[in-house]
């Protein structure tokens, strides 16, 4: 069974961490993944840096710019991940924008993902209909789950459609916002979390965007299966370096 689906069946709220590969230092990717697993993170999103990340706020943008300046490339990422499966067993998802994947070649990219043991992809600017028409068969062939986003503005009809074509989890964007907001969740957002929970979708939901600490993690996972932290972790790396990951994870989900 796909590692993502297996993980989703565990009887607990899942904590996922996003980080940009090649950041803070170009060769930190593997060490960060191992450290996140060791400290109990349930699954990881590995960011493939892009020059123009439309859906991201300044923190993730900046980390991408630095990674690219250090020489991070798609090939480099696959090289770094070559032996990852001999050491890491939690689900690994690559999150990247579509253009670098298109230039690498979608088929070749998916084959590489399978080869190194990637379980799924999140590509924010690859729309569902284009995916279904052109790429689904390739993803399926290589055993990759494609994760789609919904937002507070997504219509019920479209959520049902996305639920239908999803096979893993649905990425619930918490608020109308790019990544990195730290405002906390107001009543409106909590009502949206509940509304989605009440839809009884076939796929579990994992909340992302705006989760930065224990409070927001708990709010997000009151109904949802899990939550993803990105910018707050990048900020932590920026401040404390990669040797202090344990503190960050414990601050979000004390043991």
């Amino acid at each position, binding site marked *: 069974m796909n590692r993502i689906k297996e993980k989703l069946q565990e009887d607990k709220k899942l904590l996922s961490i996003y980080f940009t590969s090649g950041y803070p230092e170009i060769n930190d990717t593997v060490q960060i993944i191992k450290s996140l697993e060791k400290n109990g993170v349930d699954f990881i999103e590995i960011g493939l840096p892009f020059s123009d990340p439309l859906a991201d706020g300044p923190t993730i943008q*900046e980390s991408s710019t630095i990674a690219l300046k250090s020489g991070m490339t798609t*090939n480099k990422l696959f090289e770094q991940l070559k032996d990852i499966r001999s050491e890491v067993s939690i689900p690994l998802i690559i999150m990247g924008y579509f253009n670098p994947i298109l230039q*690498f070649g979608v088929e070749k990219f998916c084959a590489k993902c399978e080869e190194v043991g990637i379980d799924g992809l999140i590509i924010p600017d690859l*729309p569902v209909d284009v995916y279904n028409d052109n790429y689904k068969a390739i993803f399926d062939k290589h055993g990759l789950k494609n994760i789609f986003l919904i937002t507070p503005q997504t219509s019920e009809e479209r959520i049902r459609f996305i639920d239908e074509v999803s096979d893993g989890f649905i990425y619930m964007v918490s608020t109308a916002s790019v990544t990195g907001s730290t405002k906390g969740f107001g009543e409106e957002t909590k009502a949206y979390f509940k509304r989605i929970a009440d839809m009884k979708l076939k796929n579990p939901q994992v909340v992302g965007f705006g989760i930065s600490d224990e409070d927001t993690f708990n709010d997000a996972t009151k109904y949802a299966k899990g939550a993803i932290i990105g910018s707050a972790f990048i900020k932590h790396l920026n401040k404390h370096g990669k040797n202090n990951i344990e503190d960050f994870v414990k601050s979000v989900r004390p043991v």
Partner: protein
Amino acid sequence: MFYAKKLNKMTYQADEKGYYGEFGGAFIPEMLYPNVEELRKQYLDIMKEDSFQKEFKALLKDYVGRPTPLYYAERFSKKYNTKVYLKREDLCHTGAHKVNNTIGQILMAKRLGKNRIIAETGAGQHGVATATVCALMGIECIVYMGEIDIERQAPNVARMKMLGAKVVPAKSGSKTLKDATNEAIRDWINNPVDTHYIIGSVVGPHPYPDMVARFQAVISEEIKTQLKEKENRENPDYVVACVGGGSNAAGAFFHYLDTPEVGIIAVEAAGKGIYTGESAATSALGKEGIIHGSKTLLMQTDDGQITEPYSISAGLDYPGVGPMHAHLFRSGRGEFISITDDAAMKAGLQLAKLEGIIPAIESSHALAIFEDRKFKEDDVVVVNLSGRGDKDLNTYIDYFEL
């Protein structure tokens, strides 16, 4: 002015999903879907409404000053031994064709019930045109502009402020037009209900390229009527326009796209030379990819990172090109020529001396092709003079040490 698309008819117009051949579409994150979808569902119907057309046409006439003249440039024609007409978009209110689109889109935004407008701008021409229509309608206006461009284009920043717009510096990435566009898109993600994004060219996700092309189509609509009066024929032998994102070109080409006897010539900025690493000649340097929600030709590294273009003309300094133009290039329907900074500057100065018209440096690129691209003596060539050179005086002064 609307082309009903006939099935099975070969066309260079967008199809209903916004594709021009293999280019176009809407590669947008889900956060933008409701906004873009709302627009996509309604734009054609709104544009067809009588009340919309009436208001649009009245404003183009009384506020923008249309129709703009189609001027036979006698001395210029004599010099190049062919018949050259200039379509005088430089005489539009605010100094360039950009306002045709912003008038259309502000009327669209009103009908969609939006009360906040955002825009991106490079040189500031589109920003000024957007700030202008927002002032006209009393609507809040926020313009994103690269931090570097804000420094380079101080007069246009001042104009926008005078018109009541808020100019927000884009500090990410290379701090120029593409980053201003990213910031505008991020703003739209953060404000999904009350805001309309007025994109300034035939770029971005469907329906923008098609919508902007239709608003700019008034240019070729007028050329047809005016040429009939002057030459007793609607179709010139060639239409020439500069291409940044491609909106003035899309407007000048629009009603000739499916008329193969009319040659279409798109002029890009070669910067310091196509292969110098300082160029914006997307058709020569670009590969198929995705920028700002559209599949098109764009300048990028082998790894799919978008690269920074260069041109002396800020309005042509965009790493992509609208999907219509990518298709015109790929299909061979359009002839693509690129012009260096030096050739464009020379052509700008020459037009001033020959015809008493100081063109925008963008438009000077289109005028520069006559040096090497020869036409027959009785060819009728229409050049779209997209804007006037007031905004470029400092560049002209520095370059020619005037």
